[in-house]
């Protein structure tokens, strides 16, 4: 190809030259050039290598449809289309899939073996001795671009939601006219176009609209839209239409800025997405120098680049004549090969009618074409138009169905889709908008030029995936005649261009081979995105700590000052332990100090969901496994909440503040779930005027004072209430005051020690905490992190939902059967507790496990096993396991089959193929009588 710069070029600024490198070679261009236009102008004819056969490839298109010119941009994105990236000074780009360069690709020899690697050859071989011996090499050969593992850009993409009345996709003449109409009718309008400048075909095809040159008219319409407040988005691709008229738009970031994702919710959508030119099927139609006729017009008018000096324009329709005339006027030697016998011959053009191209030839680039009449035309560029395929992807995504039109040989939108209108070339209308343009629109006047079976030459259908007509014939021969089978078997249309240029030619060939009409073959499903969209655009702000937030404690600042090590627990950031030193030592010391004196623990994440109203008691009887309406005001009760399937969903203490007000203390990780469960049953089953749910978890910080000295410490603080055990026994609650605020004090223990949970408004938590710290010094108060708390509660055999239970645990597995036997009223999950499964004797039951082999702490996750006929079988597993500082020996909890009936039995435990021995014991290992709760 000997392309050259002409005069003109509306997109480039010749006063601003620039240089970049392609495969290490320096290329000159101007500001406004795409990499593609600069490569073309710079005489680079081989811009890439084909996927499978490594054939040399040149530019085919000028926009999103480009199948060949894929580039890796240094520090940027692999597989970028040269037609869609602006040339810039210092840019370094490489062709993909070619080593060391597209010009000299070391795998070019593969083309000579093409006959042995037809479509889907891999299904037929590589089975012996085994596929895995061949696979690594195949993987190396496949793929296109190369990822730079060190690059982590783009870092961020904005995501914007927008509502409008009318979204117009495509700012060509039809789209502009539609947007202006909607605007003038008072609608909220969004107009987007994937080009950097609005105008579409008006930017390169000659037209006069409302007395103005097309491009000037387009600019005027855009300024009218913008001035009236319409949102006009250039460089923005509508990549998907989703449910309920939601359009996904990706706006290209200019000047190194990241892209931006728009989610546009439109009452109606106008698709003015134009049409894409098809290749003509002839032998070697993939040679560099063979280009879309429309793309050649774009390069000439927009970028001042003529595709060749000796040009053949080959066409089966009338639209390619503008290319021929423009290139001729620019000084190229042009011959038109018109497939139509009765084509009109415009003055000054050499037109050969009623002839087709049979074959192109040339080494590395096209040099000549042989015609159906046997004649040979020399050419350094062949500009082909095989007709136009309306861009109906978005219409189909919006659940539209296509109709075939014989007059334009194309699929067009069929039955209307509510709220979606298709206009212009996308609807098969190739004339300019009615009433606006002067003179007749261009006449497509197309004749068929489909690929034929049994051609001698190799004719490419899908350039990017290297699918030829022979591949399609093979697929049909093997009965892969469904259009989806054809696509998957040959990979036709599955490349990064998603078949924009190949789809219809492939269908036409199948139609011929199977004796059907093209619409009978059907089309494949169009799926988003219309063109590839940066993954970063979908991620938006979701990364790092913004990926999914943790809840933060009101006292986080205080814990940081106390040297807490923070960990994530059930959606909260919480202190694991305090101070420096070996974590295990710190944890043991905190646990020991708690039992010896007093500890302060931040239990603020504990759920506090208020249930208020005259029906609260009967409501909670239904919610809980346990009876709750009999709870006296000022008292607390432990209970389970089950799922309807009878499995334990959550546990916790219910507090009754007064006749009409309860507080559900659910697990900190279950607050949202329990809240929703309460709301749902309230509205679905109860009188929603007589019971209400308020989630006050964040309102109250809960500070736990636990240990034998806890009462003494609280007395030193003075909370304005009687702390005598008669007035405030275990499992009672009372109201006190702190700094003039109501403080709720509950005698509830998760350590087995005398404990007080102090709940105060979170804004007052810091001063209560510092008061406890200050007064606590006299008692040697320790700070207790969550890890040590877990040890303390395990010594007592208290369960942690989700750790000591799994999704199949039922209350009877924990020995709690009384409510089922005694409770008179319905509750969630009740009927599921009398099924065969719930009654089966071999359930996994909650027990303690005592290591008897002297080998230290049992591994959590180890399974109890028994052997049946030499085969191991799991009996359940260790759920919690620690070294007990109080007992000075390992302790463990587990769910073991029939465990409650096997007290004292010794079982084997297996962990990572090693076997341990343990005795089944009661879950509570420390202070079984519970005396310390009252000590």
């Amino acid at each position, binding site marked *: 190809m000997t392309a050259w710069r002409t005069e003109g070029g509306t997109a480039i600024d010749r006063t601003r030259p620039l240089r970049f490198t392609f495969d290490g070679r320096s290329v000159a261009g101007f500001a406004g050039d795409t990499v593609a236009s600069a490569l073309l102008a710079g005489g680079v004819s081989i811009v890439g290598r084909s996927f499978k056969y490594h054939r040399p490839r040149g530019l085919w298109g000028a926009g999103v449809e480009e199948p060949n010119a894929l580039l890796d941009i240094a520090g940027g994105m692999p*597989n970028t289309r040269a037609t869609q990236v602006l040339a810039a000074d210092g840019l370094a780009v490489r062709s993909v899939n070619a080593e060391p360069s597209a010009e000299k690709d070391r795998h070019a020899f593969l083309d000579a073996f093409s006959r042995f690697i037809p479509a889907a050859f891999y299904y037929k071989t590589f*089975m012996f001795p085994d596929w895995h011996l061949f696979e690594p090499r195949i993987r190396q050969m496949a793929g296109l671009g190369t990822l730079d593992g060190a690059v982590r850009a783009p870092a961020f993409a904005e995501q914007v939601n927008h509502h409008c009345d009318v979204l117009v996709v495509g700012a060509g003449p039809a789209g502009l006219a539609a947007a202006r109409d909607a605007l003038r009718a008072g609608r909220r309008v969004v107009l987007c176009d994937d080009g950097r400048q609005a105008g579409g075909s008006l930017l390169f095809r000659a037209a006069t609209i409302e007395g103005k040159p097309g491009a000037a008219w387009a600019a005027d319409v855009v300024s009218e839209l913008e001035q009236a407040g319409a949102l006009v988005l250039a460089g923005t691709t509508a990549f998907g239409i989703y449910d309920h008229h939601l359009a996904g738009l990706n706006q290209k970031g200019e000047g190194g800025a990241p892209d931006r994702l728009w989610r546009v919710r439109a009452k109606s959508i106008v698709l003015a997405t134009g049409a894409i030119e098809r290749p003509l099927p002839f032998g070697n139609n993939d040679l560099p120098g063979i280009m879309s006729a429309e793309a050649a017009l774009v390069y000439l008018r927009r970028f001042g680049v003529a595709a060749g000096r000796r040009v053949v324009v080959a066409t089966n329709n009338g639209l390619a004549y503008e290319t021929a005339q423009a290139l001729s006027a620019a000084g190229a030697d042009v011959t038109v090969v018109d497939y139509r016998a009765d084509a009109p011959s415009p003055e000054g053009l050499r037109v050969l009618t009623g002839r087709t191209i049979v074959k192109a030839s040339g080494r590395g680039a096209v040099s000549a074409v042989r015609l159906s009449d046997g004649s040979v035309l020399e050419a350094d560029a062949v500009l082909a138009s095989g007709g136009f395929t309306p861009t109906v992807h978005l219409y189909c995504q919006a659940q539209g169905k296509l109709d075939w039109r014989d007059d334009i040989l194309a699929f067009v939108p069929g039955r209307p889709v509510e709220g979606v209108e298709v206009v212009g070339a996308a609807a098969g209308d190739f004339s300019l908008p009615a009433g606006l343009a002067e003179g007749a629109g261009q006449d497509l006047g197309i004749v068929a030029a489909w690929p034929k079976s049994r051609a001698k030459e190799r004719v490419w259908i899908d350039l990017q995936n290297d699918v030829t007509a022979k591949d399609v014939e093979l697929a049909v021969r093997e*009965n892969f005649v469904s259009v989806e089978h054809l696509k998957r078997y040959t990979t036709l249309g599955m490349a990064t261009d998603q078949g924009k240029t190949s789809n219809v030619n492939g269908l036409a060939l199948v139609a011929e081979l199977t004796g059907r009409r093209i619409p009978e073959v059907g089309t494949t499903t169009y799926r988003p995105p219309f063109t590839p*969209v940066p993954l970063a655009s979908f991620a*938006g702000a979701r990364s790092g700590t913004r990926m999914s937030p943790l809840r933060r404690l009101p006292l986080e600042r205080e814990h940081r000052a106390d040297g807490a090590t923070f960990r994530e627990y059930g959606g909260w950031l919480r202190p694991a332990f305090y101070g420096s030193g070996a974590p295990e030592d710190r944890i043991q010391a905190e646990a020991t100090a708690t039992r010896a004196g007093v500890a302060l623990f931040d239990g603020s994440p504990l759920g506090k969901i208020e249930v208020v109203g005259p029906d609260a008691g009967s409501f909670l009887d239904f919610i809980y496994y346990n009876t709750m309406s009999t709870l006296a005001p000022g008292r607390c009760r432990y209970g389970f909440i089950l799922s309807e399937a009878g499995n334990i969903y959550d546990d916790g203490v219910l507090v009754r503040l007064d006749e009409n007000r309860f507080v559900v203390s659910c697990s900190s990780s279950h607050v949202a779930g329990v809240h929703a469960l309460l709301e749902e049953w309230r509205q679905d089953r109860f009188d929603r005027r007589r019971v209400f749910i308020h989630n006050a978890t964040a309102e109250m910080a809960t500070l736990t004072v636990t240990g034998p000295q806890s009462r003494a410490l609280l007395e030193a603080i003075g909370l304005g209430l009687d702390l005598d055990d008669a007035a405030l026994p275990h499992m009672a609650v009372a109201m006190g005051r702190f700094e003039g605020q109501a403080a709720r004090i509950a005698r509830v223990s998760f350590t087995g020690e005398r404990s007080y949970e102090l709940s105060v408004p979170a804004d007052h938590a810091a001063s209560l905490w510092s008061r406890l710290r200050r007064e606590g010094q006299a008692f040697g108060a320790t700070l207790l992190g969550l890890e040590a708390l877990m040890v303390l509660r395990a010594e007592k055999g208290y369960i942690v939902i989700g750790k000591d239970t799994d999704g199949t645990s039922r209350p009877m597995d924990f020995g709690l059967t009384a409510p089922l036997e005694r409770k008179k009223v319905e509750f969630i999950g009740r009927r599921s507790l009398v099924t065969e499964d719930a009654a089966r004797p071999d359930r996994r039951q909650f027990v303690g496990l005592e290591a008897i082999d002297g080998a230290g702490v049992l591994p959590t996750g180890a399974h109890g096993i028994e052997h049946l006929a030499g085969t191991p079988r799991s009996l359940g597993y260790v759920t919690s396991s620690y070294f007990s500082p109080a007992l000075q020996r390992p302790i463990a909890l587990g769910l073991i089959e029939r465990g409650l009936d096997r007290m004292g039995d010794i079982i084997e435990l297996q962990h990572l193929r090693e076997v341990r021995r343990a005795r089944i014991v009661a879950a509570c290992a420390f202070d079984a009588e519970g005396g310390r709760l009252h000590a």
Partner: protein
Amino acid sequence: MTRHYSALSLLKEGLRSQQGWQQAWRSPEPKPRYDILIIGGGGHGLATAYYLAKAHNIRNIAVIEKGWLGGGNTGRNTTVVRSNYFFPESTALYDLALRLYETLGRDLNYNIMLSQRGIVTLAHSEAEMEMAARTVNAMQINGTDAELFGVDEVRRVLPLLNVSPEARYPVFGGVWQGRAGTARHDAVAWGYARAADRLGVDIIQSCEVEEFLIEGGRCRGVKTSRGEIRAERTAMVVAGHSSHLAAKAGFRLPITSYALQACVSEPIKPVLDTVVLSPGTGTYASQSDKGELVIGGALDRVPSYGQRGNLPMLEGVVSGLLEMFPSFRQLRLMRQWAGIVDVTPDSSPILGESPLPGLFLNCGWGTGGFKAIPAGGTLLAHLLATGKHHDISRPFDPDRFARGRLIDEAAGSGIAH
């Protein structure tokens, strides 16, 4: 004609312009009566037919498919095969499938491109490491391969994974199953179809069930868009349409249908050698032989039969991938799609006779149907041929719902399957 596939036959056909290849399967007209009728020409249905013919020597079989072979979930999944399950019942089922997959290419004379590149299910905290140990021990006891990986071993198999402690989901290790991997999904359907066709099975595409023929309280076949087809035993193997067909047969199923989305990036040279799943981000990924990153995540939250992608779930899944692999921020999304999966209350499949005698069920695989195809086919063939459950399929009978004896992997292992 060339029937057998091999390097030699490729060479031979290359020399004669590929003219001698035989049809992969015939396109027969339906007969009025078969011994066994299978509704659904996806992987499970075709495998059932193949094993009926091969293992039970029953040849008078038809598979009817309303669209094109493998056009349902067989052609819409993320191609992962694995058996890293918790309960012995599940391990027995999925490991049977994996064992059959290991020899399937040679068995079918069709390269299904089984690539046992391993799967690592990441653990992001010490608590998740304890759960991972629980799972690994269960798998080892239940007789399948599993290792507990530490962070160094994870880094070795996933060099581009962000294992920094500063990652939103830091990596502590994971559950490794080395025999897991991927297989080419279309090839599995096509391989079974070709092999079943060779054994005489009639595979009839574009044949939609209109109603069931119910006589004397039994299913006697179906009325289709291509006429009545009678059979004494009929199997319904129609993932994504199970409830809809069940309604035609007069019963309801414990199934809700959801869209499961997946997507692929543009192809790139190899960067990801194993399958990786992160419970923290809710994303899993592998790289296909063609170079595309195949990315999946959780189910959509809205029950649906629309086989379409949607933005919210896609955005979550993609951001999860980028959190795991920051360098993937350079890539683009090339294609997005969705399959419709049948979700049961315990996410385990249903295999057994339906409430309508004579009609048998293979459904409810949720997101796990593809990996189970050889087992689903083997077990349903056993049930259809003998009238009795195979030991491995017995726990998956639909009677488990009334007995309360669910096989809930998510509940048992804490890891979503």
